[in-house]
């Protein structure tokens, strides 16, 4: 089974991508599936790490939280720029010790943090599991620590670990 279908998630997302681009029909489904399978077998030769999602049910919750936070921080960062860069706090670095170890989870956290305006993932020390962030409007460091640890990292650990 795993030899025939080494990366089921990849195969499914490639088929969905193919159908979105080519339009849905039975012929396209067949062609898309064949191409997705060949791509998955090719990728298997490189043996990348296989992500394991343990809690599918938490994914919509994560998406909803991230969506809401991106909307909120878009408004916050846009208003700071429109006010000529004046803000309550100041932009600064902060470090956060992480408990998340799973590489896929860390990749997701990097995407979440970087896609959200106002925070940028700057550095990650894998030996110490310390993340360095740059925050555009840093007022309360404890609030940001709480946000990253309890809002994102907790969910990602539940999903991936």
């Amino acid at each position, binding site marked *: 089974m795993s030899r025939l279908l080494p990366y089921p998630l990849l195969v499914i997302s490639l088929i969905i991508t193919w159908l979105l*681009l080519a339009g849905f029909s039975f012929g396209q489904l067949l062609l898309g599936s064949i191409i997705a399978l060949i791509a998955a077998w090719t990728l298997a030769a490189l043996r990348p790490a296989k992500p394991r999602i343990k809690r599918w049910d938490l994914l919509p919750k994560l998406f909803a939280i991230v969506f809401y936070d991106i909307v909120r921080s*878009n408004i916050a960062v846009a208003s700071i720029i429109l006010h000529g860069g004046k803000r309550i706090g100041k932009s600064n670095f902060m470090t956060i010790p992480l408990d998340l170890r799973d590489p896929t989870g860390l990749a997701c956290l990097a995407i979440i943090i*970087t*896609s959200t305006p106002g925070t*940028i993932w700057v*550095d990650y020390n894998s*030996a*110490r599991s310390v993340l360095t962030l740059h925050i555009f409007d840093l007022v309360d460091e404890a609030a940001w620590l709480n946000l990253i640890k309890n809002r994102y990292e907790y969910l990602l650990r539940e999903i991936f670990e």
Partner: protein
Amino acid sequence: MNQATNLPEWAALLIAVFLIIGAGLTLIGSFGLYRLRSFYDRIHAPTLGTSWGTAGIVIASIIYFSAIEAQLVLHQLLIGAFVTVTTPVTFILLSRAALYRDRAKNSPEVPPLDLPDNTPAPIPQNEQTVHHDDTSAGKP
């Protein structure tokens, strides 16, 4: 664009709203990139364009083509997905490069390099003192 005249009013209104949100945020982001002072401030501004800037334009495009073709057109979602997944790579690469350069220059504004405990200490005595000065100079 002649088909645009056949659009129902509610669709035209929704498309306009999302286009203005998307294009406006992208414009504000580009303006911030131009106006803000430090590199680390500037890197925050374009994320407006890559998050809701893209999302607004993608949503407007989905509504427009779905209304014109009278069926759900969703392939624009792929643009959103790929922009979201690929832009962090560039941003992280740029910010790490900036941090590396600033650390090499002993800039007091960036956090010093935090070496892991198991890093072998530099053996020559004079180099070790130089290295020690490096890390303490980086602290604010």
